[in-house]
């Protein structure tokens, strides 16, 4: 991580690219003609290198999650281009995008809300396989149990409701569901937030294991710069919808070019400690 190998991979074609991406929300107030315009994304340019961990950091409402949603095609950008595995996918409708959907998966922060409360743990994992007609019948259940074991959950819990699981176990289940379709890109939208430090570390290890086993690429969205410093190869800093800085992690955290990056570093416990964390991550 943060290694030369990552930099070399980055020289190759990007797995996903966004070019001059813009997204604007217009909010109307009731009983008034006034409109509030929120520029969630402004001319965002990002290259996500295959096999690497790219991270997006920034304060709340800086546009990180909007960018993730647009890249995952959950939301449509107003203008700009999105490229995935060499194809321009901007403006594709649901039917066009359907074959590529399994290749990009999202893992959300709120694991309780991200799992259908009416499904059992096994059904949560079976759902994407069933929808994509990958497995059926007994094979489907077997595959779900295998995935549960892979993410560190006992297959004996297959019939339990996700609501009976702890926060960390639910997040494992959500990660398991995301990897069942063998995606190329996993977007982790604040997936490690809200977990206690030891659970966070366990999930982090799981993600690193899965990355090497499944040749995954991660886009990690977080507000925790010290966490990002431990694992990311590339870091982007978002501020008011703009990607104000993006580059190799040690470069961005080592010599920040933008005030927002410096502010984030300072709030993460000082430039020194974050940079040390970044370097420690680079050596790991």
């Amino acid at each position: 991580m943060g290694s030369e190998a990552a930099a070399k991979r980055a020289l190759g074609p990007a797995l996903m690219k966004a070019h001059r991406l813009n997204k604007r929300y217009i909010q109307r107030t009731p009983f008034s003609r006034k409109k509030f315009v929120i520029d969630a994304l402004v001319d965002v340019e990002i290259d996500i290198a295959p096999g690497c961990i790219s991270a997006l950091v920034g304060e709340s409402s800086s546009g990180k999650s909007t960018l993730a949603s647009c890249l995952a095609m959950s939301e449509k950008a107003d203008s700009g281009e999105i490229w995935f595995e060499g194809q321009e996918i901007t403006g594709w409708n649901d039917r066009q995008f359907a074959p590529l959907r399994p290749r990009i998966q999202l893992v959300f922060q709120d694991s309780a809300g991200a799992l259908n409360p009416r499904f059992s743990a096994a059904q949560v994992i079976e759902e994407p396989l069933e929808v994509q007609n990958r497995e059926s019948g007994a094979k489907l259940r077997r595959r779900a149990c295998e995935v549960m074991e892979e993410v560190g959950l006992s297959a004996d819990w297959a019939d339990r409701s996700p609501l009976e699981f702890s926060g960390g176990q639910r997040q494992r289940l959500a990660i398991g569901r995301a990897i069942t379709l063998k995606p190329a890109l996993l977007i982790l939208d604040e997936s490690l937030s809200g977990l206690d430090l030891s659970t966070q570390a366990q999930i982090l290890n799981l993600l690193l294991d899965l990355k090497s086993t499944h040749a995954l690429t991660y886009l990690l969205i977080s507000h925790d710069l010290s966490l990002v410093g431990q694992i990311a190869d590339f870091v982007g800093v978002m501020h008011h919808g703009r990607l104000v800085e993006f580059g190799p992690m040690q470069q961005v955290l080592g010599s920040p070019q933008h005030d927002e990056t410096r502010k984030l570093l300072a709030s993460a416990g000082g430039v020194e400690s974050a940079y040390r964390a970044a370097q420690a991550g680079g050596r790991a």
Partner: protein
Amino acid sequence: MKFLERRLVHAILLLIGASALCFLFSTLAPGGYFDEMKLNPQISPGTVAALRSQYELDRPLPVRYEHWVQSVLRGEWGYSFAYNLPVRSLVVVRARNTLLLTSLAMALAWLIAVPLGVWSASRAGRWEDRLSTAGTSLLLSVPELVVALGLLYFAIHTHALPVGGMVSADHDTLGPWGRARDLAAHLVIPVTTLVLASLPILIRHVRASVVEVLQAPFIQAARGHGVGRTSIRFRYALPAAANPLISLFGLSVAGLLSGSLLVEVIVGWPGLGPLLLEACLSRDFYVVVGVVMMSTLFMILGSLLADVMLVIADPRVRMDNV
């Protein structure tokens, strides 16, 4: 089972409480069925006193209540002063007519409201949703009395539909299909009125519940797995939004006997509405108590049904009740 037992005990206690209160308030109300007889010079005060004694109106309230409870247990539910018949025989026939009307209206209203509410939620903020909201606002602002009168006006002027009653005078001479058609034609006006009255509330509840769930991360995740739009709306969002709707459905069931009283009176449907109105005006005390108790029973059954459905439908509620 414990949950059901607990709910049944609650239901019985509620019925006892409601019946006691109903008895108390009916006694506190001024006037009585035999008061008008006192003004009739052809009926002697002794006859009136004898009649009051026959129906135990001269006995203390607790004694009357005790005798009424015994009568309920015998399946009579007290005696009607006006008809000189056990209340049950009067109420059951009328309740059957009311249930035919209201259950049909309720089923139709839900069958229309659920897909319309889900569709409106899935188009939230767009012109289709705004149109639906405007339509429901319009329906909400029109009292059911006006709707019923408007439909009656239409039926009288166009002769397209029969007005008043449940069947035509020649109903018995018709064949089975003819009878069904005749009954259906008589149902059109009251059912339409009841459906139009309940539709906006149901649509708005369905829309509000579903629109919230459609924003949930698990819905986004399902979209990300390639689940189709219709499945997202009806197999994912609707079941997840079902809890408030199940409670509302329980309320609909609860109102099956009491929700159509006014409409029945206006359109002349021979249900509980006209019977209750008549009984109230003539102070036919036991009939009023019988109808109120029957409505209370449906209220209790409706809420019990909603609770049981919630336990079956939602694992979270199930876990809380373990």
